[in-house]
């Protein structure tokens, strides 16, 4: 199989706050060459690089807001988030956990630092992705997949090299914990210094890496530092990641859905008419109700 080369290494953009609890660098869709089509089906990636939050008795976060037409995936590296939604669901996303929310036809939700964590404060580090849904599933029933770190699928690397947490998709025959609507691989590669891991994805899958911690070399030639994002080219299939320091790397690869994208604010649909409908449904209470 041919080598999949690096297309571009992207530095984190200036951070901005989402609500008052998430200090994020947006990579998708606002970074150069990372629009919604380029990384389809991953249409948004916000990265809260490691950031210290002071203790606060009032938890910081984002108040009630809707989503329709896609899934949100929250990956917690440091800190804890508490969430609630209009269907009565809720829970806590702790360190190492992943919350996979299929907003689909529509939910209202809110996300705050977990109350007890907030009182103590500390380092906070998370990724939130939006995974697009194919047109036929955009209006399906919302659902949650809470994936706790302890139960996550894992592949242990040889020679004490570390492990690959398989959030979704498949790595070397081991299936991921989350179910997805379209083919999508999502891994946390936790590599010890000098460990080498190999990845194979079809060339047409849109593929990227985000270095959460440490330093790596991709394909033995491209050094990448902490907090940098790597867009892989749509050619070749195989690439390697070598850790030059203990490292955590988020690996993303998905088959493009290839449908038209009409996006505005928290709604991602296929047509402008469907967006107008989403605003109208939200305004009229069809997403339900959730106390602020």
């Amino acid at each position, binding site marked *: 199989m041919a080598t999949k080369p690096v297309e571009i290494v992207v530095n984190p953009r200036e951070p901005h706050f989402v609500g008052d609890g998430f200090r994020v660098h947006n990579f998708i869709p606002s970074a150069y060459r990372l629009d919604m089509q380029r990384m389809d089906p991953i249409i948004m990636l916000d990265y809260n690089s490691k950031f210290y939050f002071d203790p606060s008795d009032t938890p910081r976060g984002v108040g009630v*807001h*809707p989503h329709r037409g896609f899934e949100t995936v929250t990956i917690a590296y440091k800190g804890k988030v508490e969430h609630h939604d*209009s269907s009565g669901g809720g829970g806590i996303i702790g360190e190492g956990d992943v919350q996979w929310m299929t907003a689909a036809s529509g939910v209202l939700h809110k996300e705050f630092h977990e109350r007890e964590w907030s009182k103590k404060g500390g380092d906070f580090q998370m990724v939130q992705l939006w995974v697009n849904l194919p047109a036929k599933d955009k209006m399906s029933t919302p659902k949650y997949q809470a994936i706790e770190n302890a139960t996550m699928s894992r592949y242990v690397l040889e020679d004490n090299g570390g492990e690959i947490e398989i959030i979704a998709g498949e790595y070397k025959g081991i299936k991921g914990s989350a179910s997805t609507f379209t083919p999508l691989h999502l891994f946390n590669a936790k590599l010890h210094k000098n460990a080498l891991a190999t990845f194979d994805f079809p060339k047409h899958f849109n593929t990227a890496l985000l270095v959460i911690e440490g330093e790596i070399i991709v394909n033995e030639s491209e050094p990448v530092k902490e907090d940098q994002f790597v867009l892989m080219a749509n050619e070749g299939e195989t690439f390697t990641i070598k850790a030059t320091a203990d490292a955590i790397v988020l690996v993303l690869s998905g088959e493009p859905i290839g449908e038209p994208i009409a996006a*505005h*604010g*928290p709604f991602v649909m296929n047509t402008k008419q469907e967006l*107008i409908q989403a*605003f*109208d449904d*939200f*305004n*009229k*209470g*069809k*997403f*339900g*109700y959730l106390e*602020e």
Partner: protein
Amino acid sequence: MNSFNFKTYLTSNIALDNDSIDDLMLHCKQQQIYKGDFLLRQGEKCKHSFFVESGLLKQYTIDEKGKEHIIQFAPEKWFISDRESVYFDNPSNYFIQAIEDTKVFVLDELFFQELSLSHPNFLDYNNRLLHNHIRHLQKRITQLLSATAEQRYLDFIQVYPDISLRVPQTMIASYLGITPESLSRVRKELAQQFQK
């Protein structure tokens, strides 16, 4: 957010040749302002009208108790001004402030005068805009005097379909002339109707 170029807006509504547009543009300028910035403060004379290319503005007054009352929101493609101050040269009773980072086209009165003289069809268009504004204000007065909180809210979402996601509930309540608690109740009741 969507962005609307003022020139495109003008030429899509009025037949104008390129030379006329360039002449007219001498009487206006583009201005970038940031969230929290003011285009007008109470007590000042308003000299301009503003066309929002991108972003969101609010026009409001503050009563003797310090409470804010929002008269109008101006998202993309809306005009906003204090016509009393511009036309009658009175000090303004209003603030115009950016709720989001906003790009406006700043139009002075000469712009409207020149356009009216050189392009009679602009007069028709401007008349329609003015009458539409009066219709909107009449409806606002009637609603504030007699409509229920739910009726006011349902009308608001027709006029401003995406504002409810761009501003805090307190601003919507201020525009509707109801308390934030009443707005919350209206939204809850609407959601319950749907759940039944």
